[in-house]
């Protein structure tokens, strides 16, 4: 670690040295307005190439020389913090969330406050002001948020197993238990062996990561991170429903309805037990439905229908539906002041971002290049078959370029036409279920608020509860131990966080 620290220190020193040289060297040259530098994460195995077709088209459409630094998603947060400490700061940075590192820099003035500036740009003036507020730091908008579907939680199950055992799709959490139990004990794959389990849960770290635990707690009525009780906001883990929900999950763990290695199971292998017929249920975001269907399709293109079934949120034991929404955004595009120094330069960058959210560029980022990888059929983007090597490259590249899409005025691009009638049907059902669930969404009432104490040590505090939750489920500690951990959260600084959040909440009313 010393080495790591020293190299960070070395970077800092170099940065300072460069700043000093820049100062003594008189005025730095004015930024080239035709060049835009961006830092963005990529989720694929390889970043897109810098001279690919999508890149060229992007430069052609925006009229800028766009230089993107693609950074692996897994280490993006680290890299972002280090970049902010360096001298090579891009003009546009994808910020993945209101992390303490980001908030500290923002409050020190590292990023432009865009609160009153976005309105002038037709494609940046959002049609979801609530989400923009969620993405703000106590009301200050530091970036153009990247819109996401607010409802994404779903329960996916092996439809063939369900049919074989003559069960119904779950509607309540109690149904989920019954299906999981049947999947575990009634030999749903018919091989005569007791080798299946109900729900597959991978290693999940922190609180509020849309993990299966978070979703089940919300379904039980514990709220979503924060919840209003008696005119005050309290963290959802202080509610009785939180304990009930975890008792429920623990019962499933104890009865072996959940994979026993849930604390260590690698999340990137989440689909494997489902596909291989080991664990029949996944509780996750609904986009996994298509991923799972695709797995079965690749294995057997003639028989992949009716393998994957899904439902949205589940009714809790109180007989009501509390669905688990996201905050409606996934980070934002922020503009650092170090690289964009004047209002005029900011204007140039915002004009570029405005263009990035125009219909034609949004279609490029999300659909690809018309005539190369897709054609428009009935207002939908249909993949060109058979795929040309060129089309394939574009299709792969846009998975990364989509990270630059903000869609703050709704989706400007074409909805994707699914490959077969069955997949189209499933897709349409997904849209329908999610729209229905949106009506009972339980939002996080504290999404917009950033408390100073939370910035300083919130993540460590939350870890106390997150780890205790896993320990309780694994049987390493009992319910008393979980309660002790929640108390420890409060006494180690959580009380202060709560006080600050409540104050911000009152002030915003």
């Amino acid at each position: 670690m010393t080495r790591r620290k020293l190299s960070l220190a070395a970077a800092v020193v170099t940065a300072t040295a460069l700043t000093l040289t820049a100062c003594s060297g008189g005025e730095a040259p004015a930024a080239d307005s035709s060049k835009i530098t961006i830092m963005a994460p990529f989720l694929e195995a390889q970043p897109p190439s810098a001279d690919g077709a999508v890149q060229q088209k992007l430069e052609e459409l925006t009229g800028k020389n766009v230089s993107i630094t693609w950074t692996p998603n897994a280490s993006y947060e680290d890299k972002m913090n280090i970049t902010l400490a360096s001298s090579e700061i891009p003009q546009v940075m994808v910020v993945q969330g209101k992390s303490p590192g980001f908030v500290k820099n923002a409050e020190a003035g590292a990023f432009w406050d865009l609160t009153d500036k976005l309105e002038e740009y037709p494609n940046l003036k959002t049609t979801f002001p609530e989400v923009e507020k969620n993405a703000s730091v106590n009301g200050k908008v530091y970036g153009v948020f990247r819109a996401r579907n607010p409802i994404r939680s779903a329960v996916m199950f092996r439809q063939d197993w369900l049919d074989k055992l003559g069960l119904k799709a779950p509607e309540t959490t109690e149904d989920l238990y019954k299906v999981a139990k049947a999947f575990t004990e009634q030999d749903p794959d018919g091989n005569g062996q007791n080798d299946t389990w109900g729900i597959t849960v991978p290693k999940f770290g922190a609180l509020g990561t849309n993990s299966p635990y978070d979703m089940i707690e919300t379904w039980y009525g514990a709220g979503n991170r924060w919840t209003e009780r008696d005119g005050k906001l309290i963290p959802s883990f202080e509610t009785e429903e939180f304990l009930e929900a975890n008792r429920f999950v623990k019962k499933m763990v104890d009865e072996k309805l959940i994979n026993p290695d849930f604390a260590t199971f690698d999340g990137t292998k989440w689909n494997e037990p489902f596909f291989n017929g080991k664990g029949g249920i996944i509780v996750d975001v609904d986009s996994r439905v298509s991923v799972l269907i695709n797995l079965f399709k690749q294995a057997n293109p003639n028989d992949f229908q009716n393998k994957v079934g899904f439902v949205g949120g589940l009714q809790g034991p109180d007989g009501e539906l509390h669905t688990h929404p996201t905050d409606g955004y996934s980070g934002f595009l922020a503009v650092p002041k170090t690289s964009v120094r004047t209002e005029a330069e900011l204007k140039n960058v915002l004009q570029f971002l405005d263009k990035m959210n125009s219909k034609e560029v949004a279609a490029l980022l999300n659909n690809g290049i018309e005539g190369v990888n897709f054609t428009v059929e009935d207002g939908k983007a249909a993949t060109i078959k058979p795929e040309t090597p060129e089309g394939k490259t574009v299709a792969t590249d846009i998975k990364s370029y989509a990270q630059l899409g903000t869609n703050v005025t709704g989706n400007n691009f074409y909805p994707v036409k699914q490959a077969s009638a069955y997949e189209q049907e499933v897709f349409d059902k997904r849209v329908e279920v999610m729209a229905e669930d949106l009506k009972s969404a339980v939002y996080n009432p504290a999404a917009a608020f950033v408390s100073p104490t939370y910035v300083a040590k919130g993540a460590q505090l939350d870890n106390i509860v997150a780890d205790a939750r896993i320990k309780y489920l694994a049987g390493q500690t009992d319910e008393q131990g979980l309660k002790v951990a929640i108390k420890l959260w409060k006494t180690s600084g959580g009380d202060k966080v709560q006080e600050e959040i409540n104050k911000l909440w009152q002030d915003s009313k």
Partner: protein
Amino acid sequence: MTTSTVDVKAPEQAPPPAPAPGRRRRFAVHFAHYKWLYLLLLPGVIYFAVFRYAPMYGVSIAFKDYVPFLGVNASPWVGFQHFQDFFSNPDFGRLLGNTLILAFLNLGIAFPLTIVLALLLNEVRLSILKRTVQTLVYIPHFLSWTIVASLSFLLFALDFGPLFLFINSVLGTDIDFLSDPAWFRPLIVLQEIWKNTGWGTIIFLAALATVDQDQYEAAIIDGAGRFRRVWHITLPGIRSTIIVMLILAIGQMLNTGFEQIYLMTNALNRDVADVFDTYVYFVGITQGAYSYSTAVGLFKSLVGIVLIFGTNALAKRFNQSGLF
């Protein structure tokens, strides 16, 4: 290393100090005489100045509230605030304990094993066998911790890992090695042994080659068995090497290996797994609390310095031959 020692000592042997101009001239003569040796020293000095001493400027952020955007100079001073926070933090005792326990386990188990392996290799008479074994035990050193961790996950995976199945069927138990806190430390030490013991034998084997062969012949004539010979000839012969290596190992002791521990940590074993290195990463890099984590790192370095000087003093006391 030896050359630089000579250089440093040379001025001390010069005659008693003369008036300033004379001393200066004497130094010039001395310098002219040894100029090539000083030239040899130069790259080392530059290396340490640029890559080891200059970056220490950055350590000042441990006493500031550093915000990257403001830079090191503009960030406000906060004195010992971060150290106070750290020492009063409930995590402090746990981190120190975990770090020390792991460090001593590694030192107490892995370090002697290196010597034992070197002795065993030294006793192998068949040259081809010896070389093959040597090469084979070096290999794990070149695998990254990521691969070592992945191998461990495969071997100890719940319900299908071969070692999981084997050990539990022999012992009749149901231990989940990867998440059971009691098994975290043994696993870490085992990985360390597997990966680095072979590589560590290189220096000992070199030292063993210098032991006087005549003494063995004499001992054989006196009727000493193999163990007697190892105990009375081989070990004393490499004693100074062992002590130097021990002091170096103790200096490195608190560097418990970030990657290894980070990769093996999960929610169930975090209580025993958190060490200074992972804590600094978690708090500093992922949460952007640079100042606080620099303070933690600085504290760790101070403990390291105390350990290395302490061991050196002890070694001198017992053997009159320390590292410096």
